[in-house]
């Protein structure tokens, strides 16, 4: 059991400011210049470097493809993969989700799985509309043919 439970006026904490009860992370640290603190700060700067490098790679690929006139699904896949990498590091390290309990991580991430269906369904729908408009269902073209 954690030390917070021995607090004198535990009732007032439940009813009022709850953060003192639960933010165990904050209660253990005192010295900003400690070894542990320095290690955490170093990690933050490492992630910064990583995010910057990934962005530079994205821009380099984007410019390279632009000037070379290359259009390929491979490049799009690389962009999307690098975006997910950046997002994962921001959520895990900067938002400290990696430090939370596993069941809370699931509470946050599982609802977002809906996006997998959203993206597939809506993009497929858009693609199908384009297909219809370009083929038999395009009334504009039919009118043009009739006149």
């Amino acid at each position, binding site marked *: 059991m954690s030390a917070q439970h021995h607090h004198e006026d535990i009732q007032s904490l439940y009813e009022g400011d709850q953060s003192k009860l639960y933010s165990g992370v904050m209660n253990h640290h005192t010295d900003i210049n400690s070894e542990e603190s320095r290690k955490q700060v170093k990690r933050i700067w490492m992630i910064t470097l990583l995010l910057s490098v990934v962005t530079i790679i994205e821009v380099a690929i*984007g410019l390279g493809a*632009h000037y070379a006139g290359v259009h390929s699904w491979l490049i799009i896949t690389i962009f999307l993969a690098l975006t997910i990498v950046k997002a994962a590091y921001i*959520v895990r390290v900067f938002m400290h989700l990696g430090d939370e309990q596993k069941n*809370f991580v699931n509470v946050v991430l599982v609802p977002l799985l809906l996006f997998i269906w959203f993206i597939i369904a809506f993009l497929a729908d858009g693609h199908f509309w384009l297909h219809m408009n370009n083929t038999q269902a395009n009334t504009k073209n039919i009118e043009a043919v009739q006149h």
Partner: protein
Amino acid sequence: MTQATTAAIEKSTRWHGGRSPYNVSYGKIMMWFFLISDALTFGALLISYGTTRFSSNVWPDPNAVFHSFPVISNFTDKPLPLMFVSLMTFILILSSVTMVLAVHAGHYNDKKGVIRWMLLTIIGGICFLACQAWEWTHLYHTGAWWGSFFNAPLESVQHLFNMHRPGTAEAIARDPSVAAAATHDFYNYFFTITGFHGAHVTSGVILNIMLLVNTVNGTYERRGHYEMVEKVGLYWHFVDLVWVFVFTCFYLL
């Protein structure tokens, strides 16, 4: 007691009251839930952008739309695709870093550290907003706005399209009106989504300023913890997170 029995007790008592099952305070959980709902809103906007793009034969080339840089573009006609938005992205990443350092200082009850990093975070946010204001103004002067280029002649939008992209030249030759229609859609989504994101940055800067004032006044020092910095920090990182996706969808793809 072995580790396994401790874990078993932990598990059985977790949901029996008297403690937070997630070991996260109410305020922080609610901030996460708000961010999930906000992620769905931004997701809906970006997915509808994608749907419209997938249902169009042609789409403006971001390298042709976003090619200007303040001051430098006054001296050279050379297009500078991706350069300005890279700077904006870098500013936002840095202000996210200073925020996480403020949260870190808060964990250690380091008031001076919180003040220093919060100040830098606010400056970063304002710099980003200034960049966005410049970009919007620049695009506005090229005729772009909500509802712009509706039924516009092909000559006014042709330069935004990459004719070497497979299918683009053919589609425009078949029906020249598709170019203006796609440009119209593109700018509507651009101003709506970056505007919605900019509104988030603006409210984030306001929250950060309130946080700084409270820190300077010693509100959190008296309270004994800096959890408010963590909660607003979550929001600020989310704004950076959304920008990562906006950057990919509008500028890279």
